[in-house]
Structure formats: structure tokens, C-alpha cells
């Protein structure tokens, strides 16, 4: 299965990219600055060491006594002349009373026929302090700049993308059944303006197609009813006008039955379209308990076996009254149609659910198709194949959960009202 990646907002995304890039640039520039300043400071120290050495040399050349100021300046004699040595060294500093890191330049000079070793040192600590001070002030400045930039970037992005978010909100609220077409605020940014135009074209087309389809369903249903009415009426006339044989009569009444079936199917399809079109928008508090009771009273006359009704407490649901009647009627009549054997049909209402169960021999073969229109498990049962599809549509419309299960020889349909 494809893993669903976590979605983040456009503004957050651009902000996070900004943060990552800024942090990267900040740390890189800090490191670069650190090395650059350190190099400069080192060069400065070296220059100072060399110049101190030169001063001492000139003092020595003038024949004055060697000048010494340990640990900063030490002048001694050496047997041989070596090249200059420049190194870091740890030396005890009596003035600080601790061991400090010094930069040391040892040069060997022959002055007035004496080989001198001149060691000049400078404290590294001082230069490091300067380095740290520079870096910290740099970081402070850059953080302030970063915060300000981040804020302006965010505000600017939000402003820039505002038309896009407006359009998105409009699309979210777009409803096929709404009488008004979608209205999008105009934008002077070309891409957003194009987006709006395309969205408008697309939604207008979808609305037009949808209305055509709706009109078509209504027309077909309407156009079918009249020929059916003519057939029905003519059959009745034939039955009453001429003497018929019993066989002819049976055939005519059988046609009457088929007309009735087509009519029911037609009604069912029209109802499905209407539910799909959200044409039932009259929700109110409905007592399913009393609707079920009415239904049972009606069905008792045409269904000989017992219908058990277990009602824990009155179930009130907010929905269209007509649809509530259809939902109960379809579930109960489905149970009656498919009831096999001698047990009772059981209707149970509990706190937030309605279940209807009838006896059967075996579970439904294709459970996934049971709520599809025209799905029939068993051809021998006369039905339009729409009852459960309508029940499911009604439940979907109100976010109720309609499920089927088979338990201990019973088909159970359960509606959970959340």
C-alpha cells in the first residue's frame, strides 16, 4: 500500500526552506568568518613578533645589553645558527600564575660575532578573545536579520498567495447542487488569474453536465410513466370489455404485475437521483421508534409471521422525515422479502442503532455488492434491486453506518447513528 505522506502548508513549506537555507548560510559564513579573522589575527601576531625581534636586533647591534623580559622576550646565546622557528608553546606565566598558550618566534642571529637566540612570545588568549567577540557580534547581527527577514518573508508570502487560498476555499465550498455558479475573486497575478479562469470553466462544465444528467433522469422517468399508464389502463379495459379465457386473463394480470414492477423501479431510480442530488434538505427530529411501529402495523397485515420489536428507549434522529420512513420501510420490507424458515423477524432499537434481522440459510455470497443497485443474490425473489441501494444512499447522506452481517442463521442489517 502507498504510504500517505504528511502534508504541510505552502507558507510553512516556504518558511521551512527559508529557515534551512538561512541556517546553512549562517553557519557556513560564521565558519568562514572565524577562519578569516583567525588568520588575520595570527598574521598580526607574527608581524608583531618579527618587528619586536627586529627592534631587539637593532638594540644588540648598537652594542647595548641584551634586553630580556621573560616570558615575552628572552635573549640568549646559541652555538649554532638555525633558521627561524615559529610555534605555539605552553609556558608558565608568573604574572597570571598559570600556564598559558603563547605564540613563540625563535630567531638565531649573529651580531657582533656572537650567536644570539632571540625568543619573542605573545599571548594567544588575547587574540582568541577578540575572535570570539567578533564571531558573537556577527551571530547576533545575523540572527536579528534572520528573524526580521523570516517575518517579512512569511507575511509577504501570505499576501502573495492570498488569491490562491481564496480560490482554494471557494473550490472547497463548491457544491454541484448549489443554484449559483462558483464566484472567484480576481487577481492581478497572471498565474492565479489563469487558475481562476480554468477553475471557472471546469466547474461550469461539471455543473452543466450534472444538470443535463439530472434532467435526463427526470425526463426518462416522466416519459416512462405515461406509456406505462396507457398500458395499464388498456389492459384493464380489455379485461372488462371482452370475454376472455382464463389463460388470457392470467397473462393480462401477469403483464399488470410487470408494469407494477417497472413502476416501482422507476420510482426507486428517481428517488436515488433525488437523494444523490441532495434534494431532501428538510432535517428535523424524527422518532424512528414510532416510524418502525407504524411500519410493523402496516406489514402485519400482509406478513403472516411474527415481527418482534425490541425497543430499549425511543430513538430520535435528525433527518428528513420522508427519508426516515423510506429507510425503515426498505430495511423491513427487505427482511420480509428474504425471510426463510419459521423464525421471527427481529427489529431492535438501542441507544444509537437500529438493527433488522431475518432468518436465512446461508450468508450473502458477495457482501461487497449487497448495497449496489440491481444486485440480486437470488433471482427467484421478486424485487426491484433498489431497496438496499436506497437505504445505503440515505445512510451515506447523513453519515450513518449501514452494515450487513450473518450470525447464527440470521441476516442482520445494522444502522449506527453517530
Amino acid at each position, binding site marked *: 500500500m502507498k504510504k500517505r505522506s504528511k502534508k504541510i502548508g505552502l507558507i510553512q513549506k516556504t518558511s521551512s526552506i527559508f529557515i534551512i537555507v538561512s541556517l546553512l548560510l549562517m553557519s557556513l559564513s560564521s565558519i568562514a568568518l572565524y577562519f578569516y579573522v583567525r588568520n588575520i589575527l595570527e598574521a598580526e601576531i607574527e608581524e608583531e613578533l618579527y618587528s619586536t625581534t627586529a627592534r631587539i636586533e637593532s638594540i644588540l647591534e648598537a652594542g647595548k645589553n641584551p634586553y630580556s623580559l621573560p616570558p615575552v622576550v628572552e635573549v640568549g646565546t646559541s652555538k649554532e645558527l638555525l633558521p627561524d622557528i615559529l610555534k605555539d608553546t605552553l609556558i608558565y606565566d608568573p604574572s597570571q600564575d598559570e600556564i598559558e598558550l603563547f605564540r613563540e618566534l625563535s630567531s638565531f642571529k649573529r651580531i657582533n660575532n656572537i650567536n644570539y637566540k632571540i625568543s619573542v612570545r605573545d599571548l594567544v588568549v588575547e587574540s582568541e578573545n577578540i575572535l570570539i567577540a567578533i564571531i558573537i557580534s556577527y551571530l547576533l547581527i545575523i540572527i536579528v536579520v534572520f528573524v526580521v527577514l523570516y517575518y517579512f518573508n512569511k507575511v509577504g508570502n501570505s499576501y502573495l498567495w492570498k488569491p490562491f487560498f481564496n480560490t482554494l476555499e471557494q473550490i472547497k465550498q463548491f457544491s454541484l447542487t448549489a443554484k449559483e455558479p462558483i464566484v472567484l475573486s480576481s487577481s492581478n497575478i497572471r498565474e492565479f488569474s489563469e487558475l481562476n479562469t480554468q477553475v471557472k470553466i471546469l466547474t461550469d462544465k461539471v455543473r452543466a453536465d450534472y444538470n443535463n444528467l439530472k434532467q435526463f433522469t427526470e425526463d426518462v422517468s416522466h416519459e416512462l410513466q405515461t406509456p406505462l399508464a396507457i398500458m395499464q389502463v388498456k389492459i384493464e379495459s380489455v379485461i372488462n370489455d371482452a370475454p376472455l379465457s382464463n389463460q388470457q*386473463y392470467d397473462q393480462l394480470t401477469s403483464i399488470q404485475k410487470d408494469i407494477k414492477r417497472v413502476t416501482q423501479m422507476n420510482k426507486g431510480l428517481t428517488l436515488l437521483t433525488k437523494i444523490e442530488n441532495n434534494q431532501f434538505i428538510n432535517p428535523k427530529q424524527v422518532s424512528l421508534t414510532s416510524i418502525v411501529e407504524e411500519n410493523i402495523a402496516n406489514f402485519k397485515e400482509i406478513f403472516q409471521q411474527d415481527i418482534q420489536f425490541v425497543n430499549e428507549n425511543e430513538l430520535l434522529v435528525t433527518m428528513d422525515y420522508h427519508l426516515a420512513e423510506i429507510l425503515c420501510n426498505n430495511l423491513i420490507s427487505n427482511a420480509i422479502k428474504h425471510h426463510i424458515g419459521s423464525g421471527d423477524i427481529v427489529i431492535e432499537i438501542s441507544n444509537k442503532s437500529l438493527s433488522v434481522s431475518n432468518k436465512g440459510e446461508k450468508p450473502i455470497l458477495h457482501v461487497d455488492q449487497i448495497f449496489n443497485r440491481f444486485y440480486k443474490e437470488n433471482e427467484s425473489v421478486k424485487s426491484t434491486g433498489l431497496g438496499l441501494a436506497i437505504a445505503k444512499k440515505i445512510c451515506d447522506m447523513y453519515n450513518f453506518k449501514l452494515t450487513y452481517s450473518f450470525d447464527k442463521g440470521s441476516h442482520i442489517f445494522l444502522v449506527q447513528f453517530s
Partner: protein
Amino acid sequence: MKILIAEDEFSLQQSIAIYLEKEGNVCEVASDFNEASYKISLYDYDIVILDLNLLTGSGIDILKQLKKKQGANTAVIIISANNSLDDKLEGLDLGADDYLTKPFHLAELNSRVKAILRRQMFGGGAIVVFNEIKIDTDGHVVTVGEKEIVLTKKEYDLLLFFVTNKNRVLSKEIIAEHLWGDNSDLIDNFDFIYVHVNNLRKKLTKEGAKYIKTAYGSGYKFIED
């Protein structure tokens, strides 16, 4: 009774007219909106049977026109291909007396027509008489000769349906639909219609009224010998 049938489908219009004329009514027909509008402005009818979708206009406008007419006491039965609840309610709100969805049985239409006529002429409490049988449609009391017979609700409906459609063959399908409406398609065998009819027949026969006859093996006919 004078009835106008406003229906643009010719064969349907004719079948309705023939059926209702056999019941002793005078029927006129209108095949489109203008004809219907013209006829109701000229003549007074007891009942207008009105198709909502007339070729050149809406039956609703005919209904409005009828209700505006001074002094007229015309009842309206709407017949419509549209079975939506809203249309039904709108029609009834505008003053229609009954609403039938296509397709319908002529026997059903006839029983609705008769019920309206009873309401119109006697304010509902008419007594339907067939020979020695008297049906008080107000108190739902049935007497045969001088003797009152006790019927269940369904038996009473059945008897009234038989009497209003006397001399007609009524199939079990028509009876089932009259008694149980849309739920009648749940009935997979009509044995218990037989039970209802048989109970009624027994109660009538006991008092000497033997009018329920079997037709073509499985239908019924209410007829005088």
C-alpha cells in the same frame, strides 16, 4: 355527473372517459392547456381530472384558474407522472382534492371519483346503496336489509371498492394495491387476499347477499345475477 378529463395523451384520455361514462357520468375531454382553460371558463364541471404536464402549459395553472372562478364547486383530481412528495403537497395545497400517480388503475381512479362525489354532495356522510346493502360512509356501518353486519377495516374497504366498481373484473393485483398501496409489491402470493374476500363473502352470503363472484379463476366481480 359532469367530468372534464384534461389529459394530452389521447389513448389514456379516451380510456378514462369510456370507463367513467359506463359509470353513468358525462365526460368531456381537453387535449391541451388552451382547450382545458377554455372549457373550464365556459362550463361548470363537478370534477376535473387534471394532468399536471399538459402539452402547452402546466396543470397547476388550470388548478389556480379553477379555484379563482366564482361560485364554482369543482373538485380536482390530479394525475401526474411525477410522484415527488413536493408536487403532491403543492397540488393539494392549491386546493386539489386528490392526487394519483401514473400509472394507476381505472378502478382506483373510479373509487376516488366516487369518494369525492360523496363528499361533495353529502358532506362525506353519504350512504352507498346496492340493492339491500347499505354502506354508511360516515360511520363506516354496513347493513344488509335491516341487519347490521360487523366488518373489519379491510373488509369494509374491500366492500366499498367492490360496490363502487360493480360489474367490473377486479384482479387480485388491483385489490392488493387498493388496500395496501405501495407495500402491495411485498405480497408474493395473494392467498390472503383470497382469505379477506372469502371472509367478506361469507358475512354477506349469511344475510343472503351473494354478489361476489369469481371471474376467470383468480379475479373477482361484484355483480347482480
